């Protein structure tokens, strides 16, 4: 389960990285500047949520390691 999850996170990260050249520089600015830069807020809120979820998952992984060692 955990391994699958890690793989999903990794693939989605790689996917996002591969997307970046698609709106390099000018395209990216146009994309984020429209409708009063509201998309910047969406991205920032998304980053905060994803960051906290990743931290929670890493705490869960530490607990799982403890459980495995015990048995």
């Amino acid at each position, binding site marked *: 389960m955990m391994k699958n999850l890690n793989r999903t996170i990794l693939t989605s990260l790689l996917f996002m990285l591969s997307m970046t050249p698609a709106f390099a520089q000018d395209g990216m600015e146009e994309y984020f500047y429209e409708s009063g830069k509201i998309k910047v*807020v969406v991205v920032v809120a998304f980053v905060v949520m994803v960051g906290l979820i990743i*931290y929670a998952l890493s705490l869960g992984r530490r607990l799982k390691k403890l459980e495995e060692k015990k048995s």
Partner: protein
Amino acid sequence: MNLWLKIICIACLIYTAVFSFWHPMAPGGLEVSAKSFHPGRNEFSFTGYGSHFLQEKQSMQVFVTVDSSAVYCADILSVTDEAHAIVSVFLPDTLSSNQFGFLANNNIDGTLLVEAPVGSEGFTFIEGTKNDSCHYEVKQEEHMGFGYPFQPIIIESIRNLMWHVPMWFTMFALMIISFIFSLRTLSNKSGTPDLNFDRKAAASAGTGLVFCILGLITGSIWARFTWGAWWTNDPQLNGAMVVFMVYVAYFILRNSTPDHDKRSRISAIFNIFAFALMVVLLMVMPRFAEGLHPGKSGNPAFSKYDLDSSLRTVFYPAVLGFVLLGYWFYKINEKIRILEDQQEENHHDEKS
């Protein structure tokens, strides 16, 4: 952690997530299409944001101010939609200076202001030139309920205040907890460092570091679309980066010292210095250096005037929610550390 604190934390975070996006923006002036003015008729379009030009076509007025002393009335040629009005202004040969400003009045939006650099050619400048044929008055926005203030370049991204700034408040709160427990580690009466307090200090600093990383990333994204670069030479930014690296060094130091007593003593001392450095770099230094962050220069006693009351109604619950969330994470982190230390001890006992 108390159940009520958890409920308050979740309620505050849901409130933040909803209302940081829900509340509307107050209308504002976005830009004017004019590049350069010459004596005679000049045609340009005035663009507003969240404005009601079409709805209030009857009461629309546009003015060009010169040097904030003389005002020239512009004729409305056409209003294409709620945000665009095409106007034309007649400028005489003699002006006070080439500092142009633009105002749009209507009954709903009040006075919208645009300050854009517009060139000029063919004028003679005589200081103090006035224009008596045009008068304007500053209008208040019709009361439309609740709205975030309009800021020229920031516009909607003012909502980031509810996401980016609480990260730093949370980090600060956690580092204060860490600092206090580092002091208590060293001030144990029996002379040996208290490993219980050391564990609390490490857990709290670890969670604080996560919020520091999130603050750096969100700040970098916001800077890219406001100041134009992922990283700028703002004293606050560089200070935050140094603080981040110092706390990373704290954990490297901890992990490289296997002996528990020694580790707790060295890392507690390091942490006390790290905290002092953080206060200096994030709270003191930005007040003495020129920076891009608002509300940082000058006397902190006056900075309460910087934050609009509509922003406060979401900002304070956001800070409370994230600080409680940070405390919650710290408590979980501490419990995991207790278990890890216990297991390590058991492991040692089995070996010996």
